[in-house]
């Protein structure tokens, strides 16, 4: 090796060592994750339809932060536990199962997360809604906040996003009947939904 090469190599290795050391150091950035254990775990489209009061196809027209759900937890530094509630307004295009009042024009869907330091952290299987997204939703009455009755999905297996290319993306993970819908067309999902609604004894297909 040439004598002049060694100092250059030493400088290069020093630089590499500095970069590696900085990269391997713990990040001070805080990371938070949330895991929800839903109260219901339907194992078929029929069970999901039976649990739901309404099953609809709709488009998200508005997403906003609702009032937090706050419960006292005296031992925590803040003395309370604060659950953030996102409210998504969904304009109903079609109803596969309607409540007693008939197909709704729109629904206000609740989505809980964790509130803290101005941020809201979502659960993996119930991610934030975004304006313009289309969903097939299995919903029932949930929280009543600020004088408003909100709806909640019965479970992640009751929330299916319709991608822009028309294919289905279930939010549930590890639920076979929901996973089976992944990549299918909206028509195929509607067929499965209508079959589930029919078997559950719910009202048939209606308008939106």
């Amino acid at each position, binding site marked *: 090796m040439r*004598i002049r090469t060694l100092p250059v190599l030493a400088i290069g290795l020093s630089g590499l060592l500095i970069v590696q050391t900085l990269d391997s150091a713990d*990040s001070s950035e805080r990371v938070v994750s949330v895991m929800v254990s839903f109260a219901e775990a339907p194992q078929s489209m029929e069970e999901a339809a039976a649990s739901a009061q309404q099953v609809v196809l709709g488009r998200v027209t508005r997403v906003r932060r609702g009032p937090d759900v706050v419960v006292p937890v005296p031992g925590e530094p803040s003395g309370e536990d604060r659950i953030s509630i996102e409210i998504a307004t969904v304009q109903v295009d079609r109803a596969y199962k309607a409540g007693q009042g008939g197909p709704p024009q729109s629904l206000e869907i*609740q989505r809980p997360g964790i509130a803290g330091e101005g941020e809201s952290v979502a659960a993996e299987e119930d991610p934030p809604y975004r304006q313009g997204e289309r969903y097939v939703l299995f919903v029932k009455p*949930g929280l009543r906040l600020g004088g408003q009755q909100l709806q909640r999905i019965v479970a992640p297996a009751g929330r299916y996003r319709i991608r822009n290319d028309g294919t289905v993306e279930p939010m549930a993970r590890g639920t076979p009947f929901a996973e089976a819908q992944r990549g299918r067309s909206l028509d195929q999902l509607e067929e499965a939904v209508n079959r589930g609604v029919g078997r559950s004894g719910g009202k048939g297909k209606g308008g939106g």
Partner: protein
Amino acid sequence: MKLRFRDGPSRRTMFSAALVAALAVANLAVAVERRGPASDSDFDGATHSVTPDAKDVQSAVWWSTWHWDKSTIVVWPQSTTTEILRAVNGWNNATDVRHPSSTSHTDISIWQANYGDIGWRGLASISGVNDSHGKRATHCHARLNTYTGPGYGVPSGRTRAWISEGVLCQEMGHCLGLHHDGTGGCMDTSRLNNGTGSNRASSAEVRLINSRY
């Protein structure tokens, strides 16, 4: 020759060569440290294979890269209900991880409260920082929602205490870094909710925890 060795280029050469060698070793050491433990797949969120037995037809699953950097993880039971104590003791007795209890804010806080018709029976939130193994936990909250309206019933043949203990067991499992699974233990949401599973950790879930700590 002697003068050349002391003042000449060959001495600088030896010094430079030694410096290069030392830096190469240091770089290698840092690279090895960044790779993490031998069972690196344990920290990348991959499923950990276990030997199936009569009940464990599936594998337990890590929740992303969440992990603790210690095997004694202190728990603060903010409500000292039978269900909370049984859930914490269940993990404490089943795995190699120790869970001494505290009466002040510590690693894990576990409590129950009525959150209303919010959709969930249990919720775990875990916080920490990124390290070379992934997400290192520094604090976790395990919650049980005691709301009992429609949709929050008791599985057939079970009691409210049974499902409550199972949900608390599951939230504790999340705090230890486990995801939902299909093993029939308390991390198996489907079988916990319909009462056909156990409200305690399955042997697959215990083995996965013990493989790390």
